[in-house]
């Protein structure tokens, strides 16, 4: 039985490489999970997300063969594409804690706008995630999900990114 979970996600950067590029909590993110139940408490599927970090700062941005320094806007757009597995505890129909993990690829675009200059660096990274949260059933088969997910994009060309998303979702199916 398949489930579809559409989530609104807030994004918090962690780790020095990510925070030095764009720091601060971002309210711009979305995550979609589609999973099928292998057993009553185990589901496997896929996840796609779109997570944004941005900051106006005065910093130096490094690119493979360019450097841009000065006051400007720095944006990170991250699109993780993952295969996932989720374990739910408790009884169906009640509040259920869940834990999940996944791996796949993450498309990351780092963009710096300073003055009249715009520099972009785009890479595909290997990525992993781990998450925990709860599912709260509502009437008529829908479920509210609340969770936190750690997301990491491994280093490519000297760039790595990691952040945590805090998501509120609406799950259908199951």
């Amino acid at each position, binding site marked *: 039985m398949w489930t*579809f979970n*559409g*989530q*609104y*996600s807030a994004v918090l950067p962690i780790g020095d490489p990510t925070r030095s590029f764009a720091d601060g909590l971002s*309210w*711009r*993110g*979305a995550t*979609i999970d589609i999973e099928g139940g292998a057993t009553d408490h185990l589901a496997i599927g896929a996840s796609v997300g*779109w997570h*944004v970090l*941005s900051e*106006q700062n005065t910093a*130096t941005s490094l*690119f*493979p*063969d*360019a*450097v*841009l*320094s*000065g*006051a*400007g*806007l720095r*944006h990170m*757009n991250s699109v993780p594409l993952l295969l996932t597995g989720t374990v739910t505890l408790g009884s169906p129909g009640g509040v259920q804690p869940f834990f999940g993990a996944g791996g796949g690829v993450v498309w990351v675009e780092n*963009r710096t*706008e*300073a*003055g*009249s*200059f*715009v*520099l972009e660096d785009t890479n595909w990274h290997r990525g992993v995630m781990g998450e925990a949260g709860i599912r709260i059933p509502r009437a*008529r*088969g*829908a479920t509210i999900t609340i969770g936190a997910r750690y997301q990491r994009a491994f280093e490519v060309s000297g760039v790595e990114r990691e952040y945590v998303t805090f998501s509120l*979702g*609406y799950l*259908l199916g199951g």
Partner: protein
Amino acid sequence: MMGGTRGRTRCAALGSVMAVLLAAGACYPGQIQGVDEPDVVLTVFDSSAAFGSFTTYAMPDTVIRVDGQGTNLLPSPELDQQILDAVATEFAALEYTRVTSEAPGPPDVVVLLTVSASDGSLWTSDRWWSNWGWFPGWTSWYPAWDVNWMLRYPWAKTYPGVRRSGTLLITMIDPDHDGSEPQSIPVIWASALDGLYLGSEASVVSRFQGLVRQAFHQSPYLQRARP
């Protein structure tokens, strides 16, 4: 009917969620339009260039000013000489030796300074940038370089940008570097200092030395290799 009502409710809820997701996923929030913030330094380089092997350079004693039509404008001698001195100081710190157009042999690299009088593409390769007619070294060292030759920036598509009025562009050319196209003058390093020539003369003078120093600080590969 209850089933139909339930289905429409779910669709409405799902649609609301999707609308929120799409609205939340803006790519570049707060994208600046026409920002007027000075003091931005961009440096780019050709990673295939033989940095570290250069020991001599030539640099004209004038800062070119060009408008959108490629017309050379009158220079500002008072400011220009200070800019040229600042760049020469940085090259001296890198242990480069400056040569003139009267030198018997060509320099390892040629450095040109240009200030824009209007907006335009940062990495233009059009002939309107009539620097060679103005730089005597071209005819003595590279007599084949006529107005049909063009500057080529290998990073032009990767790092596009706009020159605004007042942008100072420092360009380094390696004549021996393989050009990507026939009759192309290979540019191996460039620095764009945005907004440097904006504001009062006192403002410019107070800022430019720091910006020029920053441009070279961002380019450690320019350092001459130790024997």
